[in-house]
């Protein structure tokens, strides 16, 4: 995926088109990744994301790879999403939002889940919290259902969108149940983003009026070639893509790479913009917490630098990665 390989490939005449990611394809485009777990990522990722045109992102609350054993671990995690991680992101000129929620896996520890539920109101009204998420089903247990329902009520009360994680196993039925329950609790499908869709779930989710999100994630979720086909078939309305990049083998450039692949496959710029930027903003801005004027794009960074308190807080200097010298 390295750029120098890319240049070499283009210099060598070849019958086969190169599959290297040419960032030039999407030059000047802006992207919004509405699902990415930056806590698990490095500063190199932040820089690459900014370079590829990602101007803002949403970090949903999730499972950290192993279960937490005390409520304070949750508290510190939520605090970091609105504090430290938000700052880290700002250093790269990327506006950081988050969704707050109790994830489905850890909902199964009921004693702990009760304490977490009591704490959620401390965080869900915070500035930059654009929804309740990611919540929903994993194993589809009774405990998962209980805390999913309770959190739907919280979202309703706070007027916040809901970001739903749909299960890996028994996905189709899990997705249907998630939507049924949201409707049962009186949520408008327009306030619900159903995530991790695939070819099997997309039609019903769209037909029922929910926002339909796709996670471009190698091996276990969607590939972006499949995503191109879905966009060709279903159009761009209410569809969005994200990377869900986390501690697993995943790709924080999934959104710009998908945009590039769409462009190479003849999908219109207008549709690409909807799927990789605009739809996510429209959906989550219903929280009242997203202001595009807050996005600091790489393009106008120099003009906005002066007097911008976030950048004043410590814009990260660039280092020359290809040099053997570290000064």
């Amino acid at each position, binding site marked *: 995926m390295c750029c120098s390989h890319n240049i070499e490939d283009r210099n060598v005449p070849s019958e086969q088109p190169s599959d290297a990611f040419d960032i030039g394809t999407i030059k000047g485009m802006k992207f919004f990744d509405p699902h990415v777990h930056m806590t698990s990522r490095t500063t190199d990722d932040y820089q690459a994301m900014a370079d590829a045109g990602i101007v803002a992102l949403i970090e949903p609350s999730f499972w950290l790879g192993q279960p937490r054993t005390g409520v304070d671990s949750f*508290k510190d995690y*939520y*605090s970091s999403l*609105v*504090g*430290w991680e*938000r*700052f880290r992101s700002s250093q790269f000129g990327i506006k950081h939002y988050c969704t707050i929620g109790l994830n489905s896996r850890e909902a199964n520890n009921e004693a702990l889940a009760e304490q977490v539920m009591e704490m959620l*109101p*401390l*965080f869900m*009204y*915070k*500035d*930059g919290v654009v929804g309740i998420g990611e919540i929903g089903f994993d194993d589809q247990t009774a405990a998962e259902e209980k805390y999913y329902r309770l959190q739907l009520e919280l979202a309703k009360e706070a007027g916040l969108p809901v970001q739903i994680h749909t299960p890996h196993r028994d996905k189709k039925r899990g997705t249907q149940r998630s939507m049924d329950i949201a409707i049962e609790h009186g949520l408008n499908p327009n306030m619900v983003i159903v995530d991790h869709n695939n070819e099997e779930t997309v039609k019903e989710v769209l037909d029922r009026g929910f926002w339909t999100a796709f996670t471009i994630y190698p091996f276990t979720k969607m590939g972006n070639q499949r995503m191109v086909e879905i966009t060709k078939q279903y159009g761009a309305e209410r569809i969005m893509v994200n990377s869900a990049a986390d501690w697993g083998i995943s790709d924080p450039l999934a959104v710009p790479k998908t945009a590039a692949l769409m462009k190479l496959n003849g999908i219109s710029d207008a549709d690409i913009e909807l799927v990789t930027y605009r739809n996510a903003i429209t959906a989550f801005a219903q929280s*009242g917490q997203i202001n595009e004027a807050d996005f600091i794009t790489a393009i106008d960074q120099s003009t906005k630098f002066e007097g911008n*308190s*976030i950048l*004043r*807080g*410590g814009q990260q200097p660039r280092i020359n990665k290809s040099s053997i010298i570290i000064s």
Partner: protein
Amino acid sequence: MNTAELKTILSDIIKENITDDAWVWLKAEIDKSNSFGINTAFGIMPRKTGKTVIKISSSQQELLNSVRPGFTVDSWTADKLCRVWLLIEYKEADKDKYFKILETLFSVAEMNEQVALYSALPLLPYPELWVKRCAEGIRSNIGTVLEAIMYNNPYPAENLNEAAWNQMILKAFFTEKQIEKIYGLDDRANEELARILIDYAKERYAAGREVNAMLWYLVKKFVSEEQLNNMKLGDYRFNKI
């Protein structure tokens, strides 16, 4: 500090900078002074007051400076000022309960809330209660949080012990802050700090990095002119501290 006078000045500034609806809401929150409600009120403040930079007259500025030297609300946003005001107006007579309420706010604060909380330190009652919290804030790596403690904030100079004060100054140099914005530099200058700063300058020199000129300002009281000039040129041999 004349607290009553300070509150009057701040409430006048606030009234001129937020809508009538927001003012009515804020007053009601203070009248309620509910220990759970303050978390929400503090959090949703920008939704009620907006985030525009406040306007303040020069006479208000002068007045504020005479009541609380070293403190300013210049270039604050409306939500920040109202958050600070909510903290100082909050009605809780019990010291321990007040402390707990603020500690909760600190422990779950998002970035801008942290800035407001640390900016409020010089106005809060029971100044002795916030010393550890202030030292904790200095350990932060969030630039804006550090600036809230370091810039135009008389609390550190008035309340931190020497070790914590020195740590803050050193951190300010490390994080490339504008040292001249720190209140109480002259009053709190001390020999131990000068020694640490000289060590730091030496280290910078050895690494081929520049030294912030303000460093010498804090050192000069404790060394001879000759020593100072030598050190500026990279010669630390005669340093006696």
